[in-house]
């Protein structure tokens, strides 16, 4: 297997002026092209983990840390805060609070301006990122007058313009209505198909199960489970101990596992429908 694009080696972290260990001995490898979901209760350390991958922690905020975080082989501890912005980008929960510009076009250009990109390169990348994110007809609109889904897609476009190989979305859909949420999931699925590595923190386990390949489950600063999503969600009773539920269709099938004579419950709606339709054939169910 190739080297991981993101690698945590026994990484621990404590925020400044606190004693609490928020990341505790993290070991995790994420490989190029993976679609990884990170779930866990609030204060489990999910956002801290994400911020550690882009170098915000520990360089920007300070605090105490131990161990290493490597992005594409670069040890972020040795980058003095610059992180690996050409490799990895992050989109936060509240996109609106990130915006500073008057138009969608300027907003997408903003990070590139800071990095001193050539004007012609910026123009090309604005068009490309706005097209990918479905914003090409909105370049002259105010970022603050977009819908929630459009704002999140703009936040993704701003990152995408820097052409990172890894995109992290930290609870980017939690404030969106179902239409906006689906817009974001569909967009990242498309970016994943184009070969990008996607790391997504989200509370919606049904959507996570629908899209991700690998699941990382956190609790109290530790990774308690990291496995293929279809295997991780089988461990319903284990996850319940940490206040984490599995998709509704998985829960239902696991509760009927004996009757259905299955080893593994489906984690996606489509697969659950197929399974149960077959099982109901020949029964008296009407």
């Amino acid at each position, binding site marked *: 297997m190739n080297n991981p694009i993101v690698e945590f080696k026994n990484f621990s972290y404590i925020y400044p002026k606190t004693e609490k260990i928020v990341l505790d001995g993290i070991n995790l490898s994420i490989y190029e092209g993976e679609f990884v979901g990170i779930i866990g209760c609030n204060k489990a350390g999910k956002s801290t983990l994400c911020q550690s991958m882009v170098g915000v922690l520990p360089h920007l905020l300070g605090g105490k840390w131990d161990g290493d975080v490597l992005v594409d082989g670069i040890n972020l501890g040795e980058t003095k805060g610059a992180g690996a912005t050409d490799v990895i980008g992050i989109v936060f*929960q509240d996109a609106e609070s990130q915006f500073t510009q008057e138009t969608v076009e300027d907003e997408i250009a903003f990070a590139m301006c800071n990095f001193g990109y050539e004007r012609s390169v910026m123009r090309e990348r604005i068009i490309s990122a706005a097209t990918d994110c479905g914003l090409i007809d909105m370049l002259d609109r105010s970022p603050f007058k977009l819908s929630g889904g459009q704002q999140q897609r703009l936040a993704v476009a701003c990152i995408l313009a820097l052409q990172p190989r890894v995109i992290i979305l930290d609870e980017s859909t*939690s404030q969106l209505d179902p239409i906006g949420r689906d817009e974001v999931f569909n967009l990242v699925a498309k970016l994943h198909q184009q070969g990008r590595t996607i790391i997504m923190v989200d509370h919606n386990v049904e959507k996570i199960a629908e899209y991700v390949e690998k699941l990382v489950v956190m609790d109290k600063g530790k990774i308690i489970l990291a496995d293929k999503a279809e295997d991780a969600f089988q461990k319903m009773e284990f996850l319940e101990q940490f206040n984490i*539920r599995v*998709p509704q*269709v998985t829960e239902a099938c696991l*509760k009927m596992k004996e009757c259905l004579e299955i080893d593994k419950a489906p984690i996606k709606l489509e697969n659950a429908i197929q399974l149960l339709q077959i099982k109901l054939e020949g029964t008296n169910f009407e």
Partner: protein
Amino acid sequence: MSENVIIKTSKLVHTYPTGVTALKSVDVEIKENEVVSIVGQNGSGKTTLVRHFNGLLKPTEGNIYLHGKDVTSQSVSQLSKEVGYVFQNPNHQIFSTTVRGELEVGPHNFQFSEQEIAKAIKEVSELMKIEEDLEKHPLTLDYTTKKIVTIASVLTFRPRILILDEPTGGLDQAGREILTKIIQMMKERGHTVIMISHDMDYVAENSERIIVMSQGRIIKEGAPQEVFLDEEILKQAQIEPPQIMQLDFALDVRKKRSTISVQDFVKKYKAQFPKQEGE
């Protein structure tokens, strides 16, 4: 008007200064001590409607009645003691420098005694598990805790009616369970809870009645089982039912009755399979 109606609107119309008419002659009744959810896509008029209940918005036409009394011209300060409103985005609500300060605002404004304020803060912070956060700056808290603080800040002055705008947004499973406990507690104590939500899993399991809105009008009202069975309405309002209901719909083409929870689903289908557990 029936006796137990706590809020009623009559031919409510609201047109924003932009010219957009967000409510088009809405007649709705909210009963005392019920837990009701208002659902619909963005722009359907949900938030505009409930903001009339505590005076945040004034109707262009029509009337609002609280306990049968016309309160159309009453101000927010007159109505908010009775009707507490928790905003969707906690950052739009928080302005104190400590969580304790945030929790004190409501009871102070309504002239609670210092003793009553201390008692209310103790009770609410214990219930919502934020005792350790009381001296922290609210803006340093994570999003979920901020959200819980905003709910707590309204509960401290014990409004008869609690309006929660997208209460589950950003909440984890533990946060959702706390929210459910709060709603149950409010119900047991005789309060009325009105939720606006896109979270159909939560709404299906935690509402007695659902009001569906589309394009400024109410297009359906009823128990969750009834509302989620109406495919035409769901389509019109662009509502996605909970995943377990979608599974049930796909299997039970006759749609004799719907299952709103995993427990219901397992009960309905388990008996269909010849091999029973334990065999």
